[in-house]
């Protein structure tokens, strides 16, 4: 998932530095992520991962780093995968 997040950040976030130079724990705000940028990233992440980020997850801390994003979004992605598996099982 982090690869996907890095791709989104690279394409959408308009950071001041290339995403490749950031570690997973580096502060994204310090790297130039704007408030408008966070919303763009959220929408793009939703599209890329096929999830909807619930309002309780939308906090300042969510975008602190690639790690914080991955940690918060992992349960949503797992949930979605499980739901997909159930769908496939039901069809079979």
């Amino acid at each position, binding site marked *: 998932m982090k690869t996907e997040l890095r791709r989104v950040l690279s*394409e*959408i976030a*308009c950071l001041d530095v290339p995403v490749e130079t950031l570690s997973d724990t580096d502060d994204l705000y310090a790297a130039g992520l*704007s*408030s*408008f940028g966070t919303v763009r990233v*959220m*929408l793009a992440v939703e599209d890329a991962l096929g999830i909807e980020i619930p309002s309780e997850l*939308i906090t300042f801390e969510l975008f602190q*780093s690639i790690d914080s994003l991955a940690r918060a979004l992992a349960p949503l992605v797992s949930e979605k995968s499980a739901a997909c598996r159930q769908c496939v099982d039901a069809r079979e």
Partner: protein
Amino acid sequence: MIGNPTMRPVTFACCYGWLHLPASRNATTGVVLCSPFGYDALCVHRGWRDFANALTVSCGIPALRFDYPGAGDSGGNEEDPQRFRTWIDSVKAAAQYLRATTGVTQLIFCGLRLGATLAVLAAEELGDVDSLVLMMPVIAGKRYIRELSMQHQRWLKSPIGRESAEPCDDERSVGVFGFQLYADTLEQLATVDLVHHARASAPRVLLHDICDSVSMNRLAERYRGHGVRADVQIFTEYDKFLLDPRLSVPPWRAFDSVLGWLGFQSGTMATPPVEILAPTADARIDFAVGHETPVVFGEGRYVGVFCQPRCALESAPAVLLVNAGAVHRIGDGRLAVLMARRLAEQGIASLRMDLGGLGDSLHHESAPMLEAIYALHSVTDATAGVEWLMAAGHQEVVVFGVCSGAYVSIHTALAHPRVVGCMSVNLPFFLWGAPQTKLEALHFESIRVYWRAIRSPHKWLRLLTGRANGLAKAIGLARRWKVRLTSLAISPFEGRFGINTSTGEIRQFIMELERKGVQTSLVYGSLDAGRDELEIHFGPSGSQLEKLTNVTAKILKGVDHALFSHTARNVVMAHFEEFLRDRVLDARPPVARPVAWTEADECLR
């Protein structure tokens, strides 16, 4: 005909706007600028104005920018029905107005964000627009609604946002930072999908985006499929444009590119300021209990809107509303417009003005930066507003301001003899020059916010794992405690043995207001950082001010710093009305008897 490039306030179809005219008055092409909605419009106001000037100066073509009905200085409210339909109609009305007043035969619609979407829809209905420039258009309405909702959620999670949260917000509307879209507008907006409904809105379309996106490329393809010449350009600098007006930087490369695409020589950055002309005699916005007229004063330097009641209250002072931060005269959440119209309901006239360098007023050559504007010129500028009100027949004036406007308010109150009252909301500092006047210090929260954070295990975890900048916060807190402790320790010796502290200076300033007899109300949200400054110098909740006759402090719950929340705006407006009624209109208390400084100092101790 040759003259100077000019900009003039105009009104049409209930809309307030600016007509920018080039030096040569024989242009055949004109541009209708469709601004974004809500907070986006607040962020880009000054840059959007500069772009309009660039079109007239560099390209020699007239441009019309305007506020949609229910937005900016235009008539109506954002909660009025059928906003989306009305906004599309207003773009069409703007086109008609531009044609009628300038004689242009070819039209370009240029819109930003939601304004770009409105430009497309209006152009489709008109069918005779020659070119469309769409800067970061809202391609799908549903996605835009989700975006606003996400931004609002982020704000609600901040300590101040939590404090001012309104439970009914989510159910009745969607919006962010004081601007809302209501049910029927949301319904109409949700059906918008430019990709699926793209038609040949104009022979040429220029699309700008912040990054290469699938939806933008699809839209361009759809246009090309309809025989439209569609070009896509990417400018990451838009990310720095849609920021808090204090930080917003116009996307000059993107603007230059638009000029080039339209076939003109680029060079927007070199655009000199243009002359601001007085409004035409028929420029006015009517509403149920009064009307508003644009005004240009101070030898064409300052711009404002004069709001007059239909039934004026005899001998009532007029109210001067000044800018907050870099936000133009309408204020955050359109506070100044709403307040002006509420005051008119009570028979009170008001002027909301742009200080030099803000909104539409000319900038001071020596002070291009926001800090310098406030430090060097703001009180002089506001004084010009007071003088204008006096010339309009109002012998007494009350000044109102929020944040840095609160600073302007109390200092203008002291500076001008005809100012009889002032309300300062969330005043961040009393005097300019202290470290807390630096812009970065304005991000520092109230001590109460950090006190709450201390009791949160989650916040400790963030601090200990290095995910919060604990050092910066500790330095900020230490500074405040140092000032507070110094003030307490030195207070008994203030003014003696050559000892003078900032607290002494501030107390002296407040005592001068008291002696002048200016009815002064200092109002703070319960979690506002300005409250710390009040308490450092005047005790808990400003309790030491209770000894004064004319200066009071009040802490209001649920009031965020910029009054983004609907409730906060209503609470403050009601409080201001009460202040005017009780302390200025009905029971004008006698001017405080003159007291010697030593006696006054004792009084404040």
